[in-house]
């Protein structure tokens, strides 16, 4: 039957979820949802083989709105769970996902170390530069000076998630924009196909709480690195320089990409049988007892 399915090609409808969407009308998250579906269609990945692991926030609700396997994790904790899921069942396409507060605030340590560890999965950050679900507090990526109820005198220096990623030698570092679905879906597709940890930071306008970084703001600023003649995403220094651009011009696209051993390679699982498919056999402990005599 699985064979049969494969023959029929998947369309966006195959990812349709009938859960009511609780986002505000106009939210950038709709663009991301659309782009993800397109990428999955492009790659013809059956929803049964896709696992989304999300955090908590507006972004964290995402997998409910897509037909797929899903583990809605704690706030900030999607990455460790996603890594483990991929390790124990490499046959799944694993995509972690969440907001900027979730990923770069609460989850900052996992973000750093997921990039170093380089397990083969994709991480989509809905970066609206604000804590939306909790109603508009400053986030790690809020622009410096951003005024909210928790920073009435303005936010301090913002985290530059791409610069940090490149500093950790993350193996795939990209920025998408929720207002450019074709490019975003291409980036997501490339991220999924990349062997290793792939970070896609997505500029996502929040129409309710971020009145600075709006669609208009981005529309006036974004440009694609792929349109830049000679841009070499393998050049770490250039990529770092590019990542520092945030002002009149904001680069999007795959800023940095490098082939690095994935974490799984350092494990013993050479025979390719996923851990979840192994028989549990107590006799495996026999020789351990012998050691102790």
């Amino acid at each position, binding site marked *: 039957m699985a064979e049969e399915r494969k023959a029929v090609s998947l369309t966006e409808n195959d990812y349709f979820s009938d859960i009511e969407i609780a986002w505000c009308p106009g939210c950038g998250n709709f663009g991301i949802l659309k782009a993800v579906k397109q990428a999955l269609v492009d790659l013809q990945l059956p929803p049964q083989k896709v696992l989304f692991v999300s955090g908590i926030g507006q972004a964290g609700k995402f997998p409910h709105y897509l037909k797929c396997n899903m583990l809605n994790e704690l706030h900030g904790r999607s990455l460790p769970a996603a890594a483990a899921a991929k390790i124990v*069942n490499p046959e*799944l396409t694993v995509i972690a996902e969440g907001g900027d507060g979730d990923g770069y605030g609460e989850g900052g340590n996992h973000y750093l170390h997921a990039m170093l560890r380089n397990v083969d999965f994709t991480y989509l950050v809905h970066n609206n530069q604000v804590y939306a679900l909790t109603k508009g507090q400053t986030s790690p990526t809020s622009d410096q000076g951003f005024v909210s109820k928790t920073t009435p005198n303005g936010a301090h220096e913002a985290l530059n998630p791409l610069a940090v990623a490149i500093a950790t030698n993350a193996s795939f570092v990209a920025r998408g924009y929720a207002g450019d679905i074709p490019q975003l879906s291409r980036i997501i597709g490339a991220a999924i196909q990349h062997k290793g940890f792939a970070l896609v930071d997505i500029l996502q306008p929040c129409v309710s709480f971020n009145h600075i970084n709006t669609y208009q703001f981005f529309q006036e600023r974004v440009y694609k690195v792929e349109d830049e003649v000679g841009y070499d995403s393998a050049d770490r220094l250039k990529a770092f320089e590019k990542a520092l651009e945030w002002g009149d011009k904001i680069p999007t696209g795959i800023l940095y990409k490098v082939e690095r051993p994935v974490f799984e390679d350092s494990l013993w699982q050479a025979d390719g049988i996923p851990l979840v498919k192994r028989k549990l056999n107590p006799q*495996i402990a026999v020789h351990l007892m012998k050691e102790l005599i």
Partner: protein
Amino acid sequence: MLDLNILVGGEAGQGIQTIGFVLGKVLVRSGLQVFADQDYESRIRGGHNFFRVRASDRAVRAQSEKVDILVALDSRTVKLHKNELKENGLVILDKQALGSDFAGLQILDIPLEKLAVESAGDKITANSVAAGAVLGLIGGDPEVLFKVLAAQFAKNNENVRAENLNAARSGYDYTAQRRPAGFIKLAQGEKAGPNMFLSGNEALSMGAVAGGCKFVSAYPMTPVTSILEYLAGRAKECEMVVIQPEDEISAINMVVGAAYTGARAMTVTSGSGYALMVEGIGLAGITETPAVIVLGQRPGPAVGLPTRTEQGELLFAIRSGTGESPRVVLAPADVEDAFYLTIKALNLAEQYQIPVIILTDTHLANSMTDTPEFDLSQVKIERGFLLADKEVSLLTNYQRFAISESGVSPRALPGQGQVMVAADSDEHDESGHLTEKAEIRHRQNAKRLKKYEGLRKEISPPRFIKRRGAVVTLIGWGSTYGAIAEASGLLLEQGIINNVLHISEIWPFPAEFVSEALQLTVKSVVIESNATGQLAYLIRAETGLSVSGQVNRWDGRPISASFILDQLKKGIIENGRRA
């Protein structure tokens, strides 16, 4: 009855552990029963460490403070431990290195370094000289020692191995010729099919392997680091993935991710790390994900005494977590428990789709006991309501959190057939999707708690030694079992008939059993390695009964039979309550 106690003491870095371990193993191979424990500081060099080996022809399952042979690698050891010597107790030391100011002690002077250099060409083998010397002193079989040493150095090159054997032989010969008249003398020869000699942590690790654990993520922390290292070193042969993540939060969330995806998963930690995992335990609770968490207690709060022992986190283990959801807490009494309860933990976690906490402590983690090989044919892997591929293929409308009589719902795995599996840290409906509805919340929360009904039946009754005419019940939990059982025997010898009630499977609490047991004697004393009497508290909460006395120790040192007897003499049994 033989009750031989050897204490090897010195600075961190002097190889005390090796001497003690090798001796312990030789004694086990010689057919004795052995209990060994160690005491060390949170430093790598210097300070004061010691390793105690106790051997008997009867069961010994706890340390004793009374020493027959004190092996002193530095003079501090003599100073700190001379009062522990038995009347005929002997001190082995190298006067050349330590000086000769040991008035009033029975000293066996042995030039450890000199013999090492002479026999093996390297003073680093002084350890082996000392091990040989102790064996010579007690007239043990040198061939057994050589076998054990050869195995110990099996991974080193042949020269190193030979050097250590030579060194051991020279130590053996030296003392064999100088045995004080009438000193303990062991039988020769090796027992056929000898017991294993292993620590609580080794037993627990083996339990994880036998129990089908496939994924371990853990951040180093005393006293459980050696579990992590044991498993990491054997990951391939045990078909396991072992990860050291960035922190304990990552560890527990990896465990949830792995378990949700279908692998039996476990983490190990101590109090501070466990504290960081508490949020994740709530996550396992609401997503109904099987997770095994080993909590190795040490004296707190916070960093406390990193290398010592305590039982201060029983109520924390039971009550830690957001909201309300079921869990199991198992507190192994000894190495055997450590093995079998780890398997039980892995089974219950999957059968009930809940977090299970294994509550151990430094004392059990590090102390070593001889025990027959575990019976792997007894081990059953129970995966509960985990659906087979075939069952999954027949599903039409899969509901991960379907309401059921037992509270347990059928569990499919992501990627298994055509179903999709949704799990949510928010409250959710039967399909796993988030809901805000009052009725659904009411039902799902009740469903989860319903599991306690089944769980109560899974809990094995406590160990109970019941004696006709008993006047007092000695009560304990976890790693103090050996000491309590020994104290019970000693009391009996003194004519005080007593029962022993010892709880390993502690949550859900076996209230009925405990309640009935307690009513058999007028007095009851709870013995715990903590200051506030957490089991005593739990007994009152669960049974409404108050115990009549408590013995508590909270200085980080393990409870022994003589400690219990001393405390009891101080008035507990006599007065019903301690002053």
